[in-house]
Structure formats: C-alpha cells, structure tokens
C-alpha cells in the first residue's frame, strides 16, 4: 500500500491515479474522467475537475486520517460529489480551501506539505457547511465500506458462519 504523503506540489491527477493504481485498483484513464474497473466505484468522473477531486481526497484523509487505509477507499468515500448536482457546491468549497491556503502563503491546499498545517487550516473553517457536509458524509462513506473493516479487525456479518459461539466469543487469553 502506498502512504499518503502529499508532496510539496500536492497531488496532481496523474499522481492520484498512480497511487490509486498502486493501491490495487485498475484504472482506465481518459480525458476528463477517472474510472475504476472495480464495480464498487466504477464511476465516470465526468463532472469534477481532476485537481479538485484530488483535493477532495486529500481533505477526506485529513479529516479522518488512517494511515493503513489506502487512497482508493477515500476515493470511493467522496466519489458521490462527482455529479452534476453536487459539483458546483463542491468546487466552491474546494476553492474556499485553496483561498484559505493562499491566505497562508501556499499555492493551494495541496501545496501544504504537513498534515499539521492542513489541519490547522481546517480548524479555522470547520464550522462551514462545506466542511461539515464532507465530514458528515465520510462517517458512512468511509467507515461503512466493507473493504475497510478488516483493516480495523472488524469481522462484520457473522450469522452465515453460525455466530461466534464456537468461533471465539470468549477466547481472550491475556487477562
């Protein structure tokens, strides 16, 4: 898995794609859209600017940073904003982020190299509707992806396996 370290230049669309590919998703890259062959998020990126989408993915990770969760799950979590209905409000929110970054002497949000500095910026806008909408959406958008559950050790559905009566409901050994 690749690590999420936004370089000083931030993520270009190409970098985003490269990282997601390294994370296991296979991409079809064309002009103006990003799509995965993975059925879970085979969504054509037809509405949002690629740089905006890259910013959104970084924002998602900065809100709920889990170093063991690959980018592809953050991509899935925010892909719903890449629709004609959502794109304008989302691009406006991202422009607000970039403006705040410029106010702090960076070229854009993605140009802020340290998570600490990005988080500091986010604290100043955390009451905005945009931030709260993205954060609120991630609670289910990220954590309700079955693909991330094993990263946390969570085993999900157990009925089909007969529950845990014979599969370790009381197997704690360290007490």
């Amino acid at each position: 898995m690749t690590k999420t370290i936004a370089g000083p230049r931030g993520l270009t669309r190409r970098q985003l794609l490269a990282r997601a590919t390294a994370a296991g998703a296979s991409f079809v890259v064309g002009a103006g859209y990003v799509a995965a062959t993975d059925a879970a998020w085979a969504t054509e990126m037809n509405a949002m600017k690629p740089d905006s989408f890259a910013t959104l993915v970084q924002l998602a990770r900065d809100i709920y940073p889990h170093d063991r969760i690959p980018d592809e799950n953050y991509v899935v979590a925010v892909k719903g904003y890449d629709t004609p209905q959502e794109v304008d409000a989302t691009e406006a929110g991202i422009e607000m982020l970039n403006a705040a970054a410029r106010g702090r002497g960076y070229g854009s949000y993605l140009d802020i190299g340290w998570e600490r500095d990005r988080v500091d910026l986010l604290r100043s806008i955390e009451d905005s509707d945009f931030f709260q909408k993205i954060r609120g959406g991630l609670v289910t958008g990220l954590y309700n992806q079955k693909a991330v559950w094993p990263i946390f050790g969570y085993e999900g559905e157990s009925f089909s396996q007969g529950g845990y009566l014979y599969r370790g409901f009381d197997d704690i050994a360290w007490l």
Partner: protein
Amino acid sequence: MTAPFELSDDSVVVVIGTGAGGGVLANELAQKGVKVVALEAGGRYLPEDYINDEWESFGQLAWLDPRTTSGDWRVAKDFSGLPAWIVKAVGGTTTHWAGASLRFQDHEWKAATTYGNVQGASLLDWPIDAEEMAPWYDLAEKKLNVTRTNGNPGLPGSNNYKVFAAGAKALGYENFHTGRMAINSTENHDRLMCQQTGFCFQGCKWGAKWSSAYTDIPEGEATGNLEVREKAHALRIEHGPDGKVNGVVYADADGNEHKQMARIVAVAGNSFESPRLLLNSASSMYPDGLSNSSGQVGRNYMRHLTGSVYGVFDKPVKMWRGTTMAGIMQDEAKHDPSRGFVGGYELETLSLGLPFMAAFLDPGAWGREFTSALDQYENMAGMWIVGEDMPQETNRVTLNHDVTDQFGMPVANVHYSDHANDRAMREHAYKQGQAMYDAVGATRTLPTPPYPSTHNLGTNRMSENPRDGVVNRWGQSHDIDNLFVSDGSQFTTGAAENPTLTIVALAIRQADHISRELSAGNL
C-alpha cells in the same frame, strides 16, 4: 390465522403500536378472548429478514419520520433530526433491544419520598409499588424467559464481559454477572439458544432473543382474536359527544385514511408518538389534546442518564463477538446521596460495530485524536451507563406546527436539558467506568457522550392525583375512561434499570384489568 374485523366493529379494543407495551397487551387481551385490532405504522420483519449490518438494518427497521429537537442535550446538536433510536415495525423496538431485563429496586417506586425535594425535578411516587408489581414481574420474566430467573442459567461470558468483570473485581465491586437477559441460554419456548452472533441491535436472526414480533404477536394471532394491521399509521383518536373515545383514524400503506371504530383505545407508540397522538387529537371538547386536563401530556420526558466508556488495551478484545449487552455491574445502582447525587446507575457491557462506533464514539469529532482511537477498535472494550435521570416538567414533547410528516400532521419536538443531578451522576459513572478499565491495563479510556435515546419514558405519566399526571394506576386516562396508555410513556419515574421488563409487566397487568372491567360491564 388473522382475524379480520370490520372497520365499523365498535366492540374491539384498538391498540396503537405493537412493541413491548402494545404487542404484549394485544396478545394478553387476545388470550383472554378480547377482540383486538392492533395498528402498526411499520411493516413486518421476521428473523429471516433481519440484516447483520448496522446501517442496512437501521434503514430497514428504524423510525425515520421527521422529528425535531431542542434543549441543551448534545443529541440536539449531533443528531438534531434523530432524537431517538427506535423502531417502526411490527414488534416495535423489541426487535432492536438488547434484552437486559431488570426489576426496579423497591425504593425506586417511591422516588419522591426516597430522594426528597430535588430542586427543579418534578419527582413523584408511582401510585403502585414493588409488592403490587412482584407477581406481574414474575409473569413478565416467564414470558421473556429471562436468564437467571425461572431456573434459566446465565449466558456465558464473552471477551467484552471478561474485561469488564476483571475491572469490576479489581475495584472491589461484588455485584456483577452476565446479566438478566431476555435471551435464551438454553433451547426452549420453541426458540434456539443464543449463538453469540453479536447483532442483537439488528434483530436476532436466531430468534434467541425475545421480541414481540415473533412471540406475542403470532401467539395472539393464533387465537383468532387479534388482527395486526401493518403499515397502518394512526393519525388521531376520535371521541363521541359523551367524551369517550370511539375510534382511531389511520392512514394505510397507500396513504388512504380509514377510521377503525373501538370500544377501548390503548396507545403504545413509544414516548414521542404516544403524546404526539394525544395532542394531535385535540377537539373542541378537548382543545389541549386528549387526556390533557392536567397539562401534563408530553411533560416529564425521561431518557435515562446515559453515556458509554470505551477502554483501549494493548491486546485484542474483539468486543463485537457475542451478545451486545453481555454483562452488568450493579453496585452503583443503589441510592447513596453521599456520592453527590440521588438515585443510582447500572453499568452494562456494550459493543458497537465499526460503522456505528465511527458515528457515535464522539459525534462531530475528526482528526487524529478520533481516528487513532478508532484504529484500536479491535482492542476496545465497551460499557454503557444507565442511570435514573430526573423528571423535569420542561423536558417535554410538544407539537412542532412548522414541520409536518408525510400525512401533514405536526411532528414531535423533543426538548431535553440535563438536570444537575444527571450531570453529577454521569461524571461519577464515567470515572468509575474508566477506573474499571484502567485497573485491567487500559492504555486509553474514552468517556463517550449519550447516543440518540433508546429508552424513552414518562411523557404520559402515571399519578395518584389527576392533577399530577395523565393516567392512573392502571394506565387508564384520568379524563377518559376508555382510553389507556400502555407503553413506557406511563412511567412516573425512570429508575436505574432498563425499562422493558417493567413495560411488559405493566402491560400484562393492564390486560388483566381491562378484561376484568369488560366482564364487569364497567368499560
């Protein structure tokens, strides 16, 4: 075998809601030969339909019609449209519930007398007491087949329980065990024993946990005396010129309105919908709503003082494996004002799956303080605080005329602010819970704020004096003889215990009363 009754049949008892109160009342009446039409707003889901997935199950079962909130409770900020986590389905919230089945302590029936004058609290003694309720509790424990009663063994201890118990022991607590649960610890009552699947809140797919959906409801239907009309949403209760109620207007699945005539109406829609229905039934004779001559309908809303404590350890616990509520510690349930508050609280193990944990651990929080805790999900143990909260007149359900539901009816606004006693008790419980986990080596503990309310009580409270409440010792309206309240909204005070066993005991007792009064020609 369902018994179809005519809309015009005015000999039936109409029960509104089929959860712990309504489902049990409907069956108990049917068993005694009384004809019952039960109106249930939700659809019917059985164990084969339940889903081992938190959000998907929530979408299937939860009550999602609009509600609004106000007051200083954190739920109003974090979940402004979702003050309660309750169910809209045949069986009501007994599909979701964990099954903890506790009797009140004797003194809790006499809260006003025991606690004395607590400023700002509208405490009142129940008009009934422990001695009167004992035989009804016996029947309720039999019906629910509660562990550690009637010769049933306790459930085996899960990982989450073992951590909890070790902590309790280390602190010198004595009263802890795997609970009195309405979950089969052996195969009986034609139901399987608990398979420790760990999705008790999503509906028990094994049927090991008691729910009226697959016990009382079909038993009642089998008598031929009970018709359950699902997706039948009661809109208002109507009355005749004599002031007695004579039927219920409801909307069917297609939104068409019907009126089911009735000899008696029993309201059991849980503590938001029951007062809302009484208020929405206002008429020229009852301009403030039905049974509201005291002005008490909707007031004294209680939700139990809750909160959770999660402990993070350096090794795995896997708390999600096994029953959701796997044990209890009762030493703090006593009334001991030297702790700085009146009343007491229970500590009960709890686990949430990862999706709910993310939503409820610290709603609104973000960044590494939050995610580094979630990263330790596998190594977490969890417990829930259930304590007696103070009734306050101003904590109440009112109609919000600015917001209407799909039928154009004003929705319930739920206003709640903590009493100083509630805050003091919660702080104490957080400290003790954290100390329990610290004592077994927790590397981090998380005092987690209350979730949307699961225990909703008191908005049509029982009182000796008609001035102080809405219903009498039988759950019968002080104002209208043939109108009853049969759910948790009749609670005078909340006690420290999970409420459902008491709701069920009251419903069995009420059915007995109604059928006796019917035979005697008094109703």
